[in-house]
């Protein structure tokens, strides 16, 4: 048994609005192993995005600690690359290729030639070679997300942090993107920490699912998922178990979401 890549130990997260102090997550503990597809699932307001931001180093916990490969997370860095939900995460002033090249040169200090080679390699993986010299505004939402994923993979981080990356896509594109992500994972076996509010997406993507309750976010359960789809029998059973756990709880504010 190898040591876990990420340990989140009793982490409490708070953020301030002008009116008050909001506790987003309370004493959350979990471990992520190498090559895990670890999904954090919960209703809106369960602090799942804030937990991901804390792992990313954008938010400091007020209690507990976050260890990546044994070292405490201090701030944002290229060893944990984010894929956001928003389509504007690509730099609009750079072409698709240069978006990846810039990330590699700034984040990994690669030479330009090497960065270009690697960018093209990963663009090929997400089938966007033809768009290498386009600017992001010429691409559809799904294509932009694919570029963001290619950029994240090209940086070969220790961990990929995905914050509902497919939530703003239409249902059909979303299913295709989930498939593509799994294929890419088969290729690279990267460690993925994936946040979603969709039960079917969690079942499809994850091999391990962390269930959170809301206001503030607390761990309700940690489940294994062997199912490849929410529609086969194992998936249906898992989905009803998850619903049972979440809806038993006091909050009803849950969006099952599409696919």
């Amino acid at each position, binding site marked *: 048994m190898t040591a876990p890549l990420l340990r989140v130990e009793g982490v409490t997260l708070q953020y301030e609005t002008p009116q008050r102090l909001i506790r987003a997550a309370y004493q959350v503990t979990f471990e992520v192993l190498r090559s895990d597809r670890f999904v954090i699932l919960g209703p809106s307001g369960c602090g799942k995005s804030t937990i991901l931001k804390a792992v990313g180093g954008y938010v400091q916990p007020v209690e507990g600690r976050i260890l990546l490969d044994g070292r405490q997370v201090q701030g*944002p860095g290229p060893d944990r690359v984010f894929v956001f939900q928003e389509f504007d995460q690509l730099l609009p002033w750079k072409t698709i290729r240069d978006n990846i090249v810039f990330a590699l040169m700034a984040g990994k200090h690669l030479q330009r030639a090497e960065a270009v080679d690697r960018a093209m390699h990963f663009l090929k993986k997400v089938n966007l070679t033809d768009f290498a010299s386009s600017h992001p505004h010429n691409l559809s939402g799904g294509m932009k997300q694919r570029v963001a994923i290619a950029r994240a993979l090209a940086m070969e981080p220790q961990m990929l942090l995905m914050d509902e990356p497919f939530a703003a896509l239409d249902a059909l594109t979303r299913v295709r993107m989930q498939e593509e992500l799994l294929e890419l994972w088969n290729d690279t076996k990267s460690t993925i920490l994936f946040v979603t509010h969709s039960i079917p997406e969690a079942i499809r993507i994850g091999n391990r699912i962390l269930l959170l309750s809301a206001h503030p976010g607390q761990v309700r359960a940690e489940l294994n998922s062997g199912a490849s789809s929410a529609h086969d029998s194992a998936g249906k059973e898992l989905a009803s178990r998850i619903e049972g756990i979440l809806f038993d709880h006091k909050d009803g504010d849950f969006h099952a979401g599409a696919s």
Partner: protein
Amino acid sequence: MPERPETFHQISENAFEVIERRVSPWERFYGNAALRKIVLLFVLAVAWEAYARFLHNPHLFPSFLETVRALDASIRSGAIPRAAASTIVLLLEGYTLGLLLATLLTALANTTRIGADFLETLTAMFHPLPSIALLPLAIIWFGIGEKSLIFVLIHAVLWSVALNTHAGFRGVSPTLRMVGRNYGLSTAGFITRILIPGAFPSILTGLKVGWAFAWRTLIAAELVFGTTSRSGGLGRYIDERKIVMKVPDVFAGLLTVILLGLLVENLIFKTLERRTVQRWGMEQ
């Protein structure tokens, strides 16, 4: 409900996505912004010519052709090129210094909170103050000459550029900021690689407004006094011709001011806009 059968169709292989269509000459002309504007200018020139001939008072209102002849003569004699060159050199000096100061102030405003307060307070105080109103003070401090002009030019450029850049920086989306920090960029790298390009639409607006302010301020200041060390700028040229009642020359001077303004707007700023914010899809 009547019974309706389900239907299935074959997808055509040769239904191309792009359908060609012949563009009529009129559409081609109307789609060209530069051509449209040239026609407008032509119409204005004809109207001017017609009105001046109707008025028939060349000493007060010269016709378009008389103005063009006066302009041609002044260009041949070298009076207007010298005056324009002197104005432009001075303008560039003032503009550059203004930009440098604006960069400094904005960088300060972006790194510290008190810097931001400083910039916001100063802009609120000085931006509405017409530069030309500072000229008397500048003359007392620096005497009649280039230094005074550069002082008022800096004032004309600084605030609009700083204000727009600062607003642009604050408008850069949180996602882009997080992406920049994800790459582990240094503060300087973050400003030059993320904030400046991200805020470029606003920065460009600031540059344009600053240029226009500087241009009108300089012409006005030169009208008050020419630059003594050089040949005297366009404002001085206009003022001198007014004194000897050479109205066509005054018109020629004004026309030069307008033409240079159009040239900078259409050649420099439009090109910059096309190559940056329009290509990046940040502005339509």
